[in-house]
């Protein structure tokens, strides 16, 4: 991929000036609200458990020993370790890394804004995201809020919680020619979501999808709906076909967190994915006590794409792709 002729930036100067202005506005927004800026390490000895995210790592030799460092995919674990140590509400604006396919909306290195609010639940945090987007767009943003179940009923025509596996397989196959042999409900639901729902929602105002199936809770608390269904206190923000942010009313139960990490690791092993040191220091921190809080991670480059109406992520990053 390296080519000595490709020396120019991928973003033009006007874009870089706009990018810097957005960074400044974000910092001013949190300064005003007394949310503390932190910068946790990019290189860590432990990594995340997520079965579907691949991590970049690097080896060094120190004191005669080979040591593996993992590049952060999000500062979540480290920020929670800070919160458990007594930090107030905190935010971080920095680079994260994922070993994913490079594409129109994916860069292996990208800028993430992640913040945690003590005493907030996910509903309050959604309000604050609207406030931030309002500041960044100089407009009044009031996002739509749609439950995962309602999104499926409206755009797919089936109930994600009560549909049978066969219904999901057939519906998925009908729209994507994939799925008749897929036995994992979540995989089918995710494919239906990206194929049928994502292009429909958040076309004007942004749209929060909330109350995910409990099986897709990741690091969110579980909640019981009025219908009796168990869902995850998790939300995702979509805007004009782009997935912008993922947030939780954070799981604080160390035992349950431990169990989820183990399930993730078992799933990774089952699919022959590369072993990595999962950062169980998160569990120790939760045992010490994570205060009730809500947190969210927002892809800043994607937000810039939307604000500048760019169709490729490379156009908002100084040096991306083969230029990096």
């Amino acid at each position, binding site marked *: 991929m390296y080519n000595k002729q490709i020396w120019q930036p991928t973003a033009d100067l006007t874009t870089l000036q706009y990018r810097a202005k957005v960074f400044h506005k974000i910092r001013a927004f949190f300064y005003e609200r007394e949310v503390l800026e932190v910068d946790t390490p990019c290189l860590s000895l432990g990594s995340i458990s997520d079965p*579907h995210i691949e991590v970049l790592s690097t080896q060094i030799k120190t004191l005669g020993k080979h040591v593996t460092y993992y590049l952060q995919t999000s500062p979540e674990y480290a920020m929670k370790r800070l919160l458990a140590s007594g930090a107030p509400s905190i935010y971080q604006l920095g680079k994260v890394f994922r070993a*994913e*396919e490079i594409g129109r909306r994916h860069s292996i290195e990208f800028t993430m804004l992640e913040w945690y609010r003590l005493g907030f639940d996910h509903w309050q945090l959604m309000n604050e995201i609207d406030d931030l987007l309002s500041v960044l767009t100089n407009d009044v943003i009031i996002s739509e809020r749609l439950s995962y179940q309602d999104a499926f009923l409206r755009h797919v025509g089936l109930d994600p919680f009560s549909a049978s596996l066969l219904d999901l397989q057939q519906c998925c196959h009908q729209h994507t020619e994939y799925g008749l042999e897929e036995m994992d409900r979540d995989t089918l639901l995710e*494919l239906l979501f990206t194929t049928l729902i994502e292009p429909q929602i958040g076309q004007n105002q942004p749209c929060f999808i909330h109350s995910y199936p409990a099986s897709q809770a990741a690091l969110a608390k579980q909640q019981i709906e009025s219908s009796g269904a168990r869902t995850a206190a998790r939300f995702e923000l979509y805007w004009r076909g782009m997935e912008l942010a*993922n947030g939780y009313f954070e799981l604080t139960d160390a035992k349950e967190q431990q169990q989820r990490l183990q399930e993730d690791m078992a799933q990774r092993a089952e699919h022959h994915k590369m072993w990595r040191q999962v950062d169980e220091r998160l569990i120790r921190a939760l045992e010490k006590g994570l205060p009730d809080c809500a947190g969210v991670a927002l892809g800043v480059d994607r937000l810039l794409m939307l604000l500048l109406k760019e169709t490729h992520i490379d156009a908002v990053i100084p040096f991306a792709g083969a230029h990096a």
Partner: protein
Amino acid sequence: MASYSTSELRSGNKVMVDGDPCAVLDNEHVKPGKGQAFNRIKLRNLKSGRVWERTFKSGESLEAADVMDTDMEYLYTDGEFYHFMLTDGSFEQHGADANAVGETSKWLKEQETYVVTLYNGAPLAVTPPNFIELEVTETDPGLKGDTANGGSKPAILSTGAMVRVPLFINIGEVLRVDTRTGEYVSRATGK
């Protein structure tokens, strides 16, 4: 047989899907926030020409199609087959049927070089060069002096192709034509 991982497929790769050789046109990586990644792949069925989209799990593998693009010179047609010869000096000949030649039949000129796509060793498709120079065999008489005016008229070329040409073109002239659009480009120069 070689295979490709769906996540590494690129435009131009040839793979087997549902038993037919297909050319990859586009590969879009689809990654839900949390969860399994997919590849939405746009394909052209090289047999039927049909273009369609299929979704695969990232990392799934697809068998590579034994499809090869080769440079061949057009020789002649016997009414049923169009005969081509490899330009690599081997003099190896292949007969392509009307199905494989398709629309390209109207651009076939002896001694011109074409890309013949071989599937399991037999011609599957024939692609003409982007530009080809052909003689005008039929058209209304040229209007002298009218070299700037915008009008056009139909002309039949030596291969039977019909193109619209400027009014000043005469029978016997050799023209440069874009085979992708079927449009006149210029008078051929130096020939």
